[in-house]
Every structure is written in structure tokens, then in C-alpha cells.
């Protein structure tokens, strides 16, 4: 049910997965490593990564 997407932290460079659904955007996110809110979704993959 819960969709996820790849995110990248623009402070420390950490990549991680987090819940994501276009309907509930924007969402406040924090990097699990450095707590920065400069978290960017990695879009490149044309396929929306559904349930894993």
C-alpha cells in the first residue's frame, strides 16, 4: 500500500528510500543520516517504483 521512492540528501549525499505518494506531496522530509531537510527525490527511473 505504502509507496516508496528514492531520495538523496543534498547535504551529506546519503541515498535512502522513503514513503512517497504524489497525492500527498509536498511532505517534510529529513535525511536519516544528517537530519537535513534538503532531501531531493531521485526521479531518473522512468518507472514509478511502486511496492517493492
Amino acid at each position, binding site marked *: 500500500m505504502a509507496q516508496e521512492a528514492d531520495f538523496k540528501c543534498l547535504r551529506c549525499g546519503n541515498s535512502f528510500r522513503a514513503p512517497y505518494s504524489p497525492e500527498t506531496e509536498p511532505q517534510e522530509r529529513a535525511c536519516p543520516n544528517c537530519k*537535513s531537510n534538503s532531501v531531493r527525490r531521485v526521479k531518473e527511473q522512468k518507472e514509478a517504483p511502486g511496492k517493492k
Partner: protein
Amino acid sequence: MTYSEVENVTGYIGNFKVTIRKKARYVDEKECNACGDCVKVCPSCTPDEYQMGFSTRKGIYIPFPQAVPSSYLIDMKTCLGNNPIACAKCQEVCEKKCIDFDAKDEVVTVDVGAIIVAVGNDVYDPTELDEYGYRSYENVITSMEFERLICAGGPTEGHFIRPSDRTRPKSIGFIQCVGSRSKKRGNPYCSNICCMNTIKDTVLLKDHYPDTDVKVFYMDIRAFGKGFEDLYMKSKDEGVHYVRGLPGEVEENPETGNLIVTVENTTTGKIEKHELELLVLSVGLLPRKDSDVVRQLLTLSRTSDGFLMESHPKLKPVDAPTRGVFLAGCAEAPKDVKDSVTQASAAAARANVILASDKLTVEAITAHIDPDLCKYCGLCVKVCPYKAITPTDRKKKIAPQVIEAACAGCGTCGAECPFDSISMRHFTDAQIYAQIDAILDTNSQDKVVVFACNWCSYAGGDFAGISRLQYPVSNRLIRTMCSGRVKDEFVLYAFRKGAPVVLVSGCHFADCHYIDANRQTQLRVEKLWDKLEKNGIRPERLQLEWISAAEGQKFAVVMKAVEELRQKVTAEEIEHTKEVLAPKPKKKPVEEAASSA
């Protein structure tokens, strides 16, 4: 209005519009004269919340004898006969015919000028502290339960008995700081009231039953208020035994139901065992769980302990950060009755300052739309969190208008308008460009341009200052009311002028002082990241952070982080950025509009 909840709040100081849901009581509270005929016939029984579950109440009930309003109500969760009418015995016996099973929740809207938040606290549930055996041993109770057992209006009519065998306990122990002052479980803060509450309980016990052996296990006794120390001394004089040390373990003797408490007495350094017939856990206070709803409706913030944050800890202790809203009682921090009353009167006096005036002035920071520049795209109407902009009509060429009384001055519309037709009074584009220029026209490579919202991140910076936290000198702040004011063009302009790093900062989503204007901030920053990347500029150079007014620590950490990023930005990179962003500055706003439309 009892049995009611605030559902929505709109408006601003002096002019709040509040929607309240009055839950159906199914008994007409004006007609009901509390004769109690209905209760006798009600067949449904449920634990009585008021008596902490020590006794039962019916499906139709009055919460407690002195309740106001003094009227019965039906709890639909336990009533049998609601739909279809299977029971309805109460309806038959009610002479005044005040029972109506079809009663509906009622929603009313009221206009008020000031709001006092006195949502109170919850009480800590010690179940998680398994070493104390609450819920596994019958004779371990909480201080709230103790109150009911000793109260003349309680389930035992004041005959103090213990739960397991309904006999009067001859030895009673109290454990202090249950759920308080612990970093591991419960809460780190001191709940303020529990020491004195226990002292009071011991004096009560000694008054009623002088032969009872009473022991108190404590870390420190905090008896700092007027008359408090006297009561503590009285308790000691009456023979209450105070043992310094919190028990590590409680065991039950299954035959007698007595409790064996193992404790290291830190005064003597010895491990002691105490056998007690009843054990009372002196539980701490928690922020009220459901206060979150009210908090969000009124855009209030919490301090790290979870209680509501005051506008200033010393100078404005009862003002909430939202103008026209005040705090009273345990909503703000754990406190006793006297302090609650004191704070409530203070809050009333502060509210009076507003209510006593017919008019107040609002800061002149509202938006203004120039109809000649407007291209009727309607974006501003869409983003305004206050719905303060009247609709556009593209065909009829009707430009939107800002309703000044409703505009809060967040500047989101000004940042969104692709045609620069919106000007923000006192935070104009020109002023902000001038600030960026002033920052970057000398030694631009050494500086980080920071956009900080007035309420949270700028205030977080103030708090870092008050806390004397040290951080690098590279940041230069530009204050806006809301981070939603930050136009993409501001950021691009800064990069074009040679800024190595730009930081956009605002309130956490839950704390936004303009409802949800900072959602637009995030969307804008996300778009900017894409745009920078497309132009071969590292998106890392644009940072986004949410910093609350209480997060001075985070402010300092962020300032260090952006400085580290700044040091990694090379001179060539900055030159390259200037070049790629320079040639067609005019076209950019138009592109933005196209991509976001």
C-alpha cells in the same frame, strides 16, 4: 459548551471564526432535572472513568455528582438501544421526555476576538515500567486512583481499602517520579506536582488513619512553593518515613497480596527490602494527546517536552506565538492548581487587552496586485493560504484583488506571480534584491545567502544567540515573514551575483505560521533544484532547512553545514554559474510559468 470540540478556526487576532461540534448527549440538558429515574432502568454497565474504573456506571449517566451541567447523557458506545430501538427503557421512564435518540451532533460557528487555550494534560500510564508491576499486581495503584479511593465521593465513600481484598492497608508506600525525570522511559522533565501531591496524600492518610505506616521512596523532594515546606515538615512530624532512593524492583507475595519493594537507600548506601500492603505510584503529567488538533488549528508550537510553547519564556509567558491566542494551565507546562489559576487569570488579563479595544492595527505588510501587470493566470488565487485573493476571470480580464483584512502578509502570492504584478508592502522585491546586492557586491565567495522566515528560522537564529551557540561567520540573513515569500528569481539572482551557497529556511510543516504557505516553498525549491541541475549547477548549492524557533541548536548546526558546503564551491564553479544564468534573465519567469501551469 460541554461535550464539544473545536473543529476549525479561521481568521486572525480580533476576528477569529471558530467552528464547534457539540456532540449529541441524547438528553436535553436544559430539561433534564437529574432525577435519575433513567439510570435505574438502564441495563448497560461500564467502568466509570471518573472513579478510575473502581466502580461502574450505566450507559445513561452523569459523570460525577457535582458535574456541570447537571444533566444526564447517553454514551452511545455502551447504550444498547440506539438503533433499532431495542431497549429504550430510559425513554419510557423519563417523565420530562427529554431523551431523544435521534439527537444529532450540532455544529455551531462563533466569532471571537481572543482565544485562551487551556487544554490541560494527560496523566502518565506506568504500565511500561514493568519493574513496578502496575497492572500485574492488584495492590499497585497510581496516585490518581489513590485520590478516588480516599475521596468521600469515591467508589468506597471514603473508606480507604486496597483493591485485592477490600481491607484497609496498614502499610503504604509511595514511589516518586514515576514517568518523570528519566531519560530512558517516561519523560525527562520534572512533573512539578507529584512531590507535593504525595506529601498531601501522606498527611491525609495520617489524619484519617494515624496508625498507618507510610513510606515515601524519592529522589529529591521538591517543596519550593509557599506553605509547601511546612506541609512537608508536618508530614515528617507525623511519622511518615522518607526513604531516599527509587526502588529497583517490586514483587508480590501471592498469598497476602503484599508487595516487597527492593530499594537502595542512597543515604545509608544499603539495599533494603520493605513489605507493604499497598503501593502508590506517584505518576507524572504528560502533554495532552488530543491537544495536537487545537495546536495545528491555531498554528501553535511545542517546546521539546511536548507542551505548548509560549511567545517568550520570561516576558510573554502566557502569550502564544499566534497573536490573539493565550495559554493557561497545564497545556503550557505541568503545574499545580494555584499556578494554573494564576496563569489563567494572567491569560484572561492579556486577552482583555485585546477585547477592551474596539479596533486594532495590523502590520502593513499585505499584498497588493497591480491590475495593469496582471495576466490573469490565477496562480496567486490558488496559492494563497488564507483565500484572501478574489478570483480572476481571464475572458473578462478581471484581475484578482487582495482582501486586505484577510491577507496575512505571507508573500506567497508575491513569490508565485510570474509577471511581477504583486508587490508586498514592506517586503518588496526591490528591497530584497537590494539586500542580495549588498551581500554579494564584496567578497561574495565568502558568504552564504540565507532566507529566513520571521517566525521560526529567524527566531531559531535568535535562540542560538540567546544560547550563545557559536557558528561560522559566513551567513547573511534576509528576513521575510514566511519562507513562501522567497521567489525563485531571488535565488537565481543570488547565484547570478556569485553566491556560492543559498539557503532557504522556514518553519517545520506543522508549525507554518501561514497555514501551509511553506509547502509552496518546498515546491519552489524542488523546481529550482531541477533547474540548477539542467544548467549544470550542482543542486547542493541550494539548501532547504526547516528550523523552529526553539531549535537554536539546529540553526547553529545548519550554519556549520552550509559553511562546509560553501568551502567546497570552487571559483570556477561560481563563474560558470554566473555565465549560464546570465544571458537570458528576462525569459526565466515565463518558462517557470509554463512549466508550472
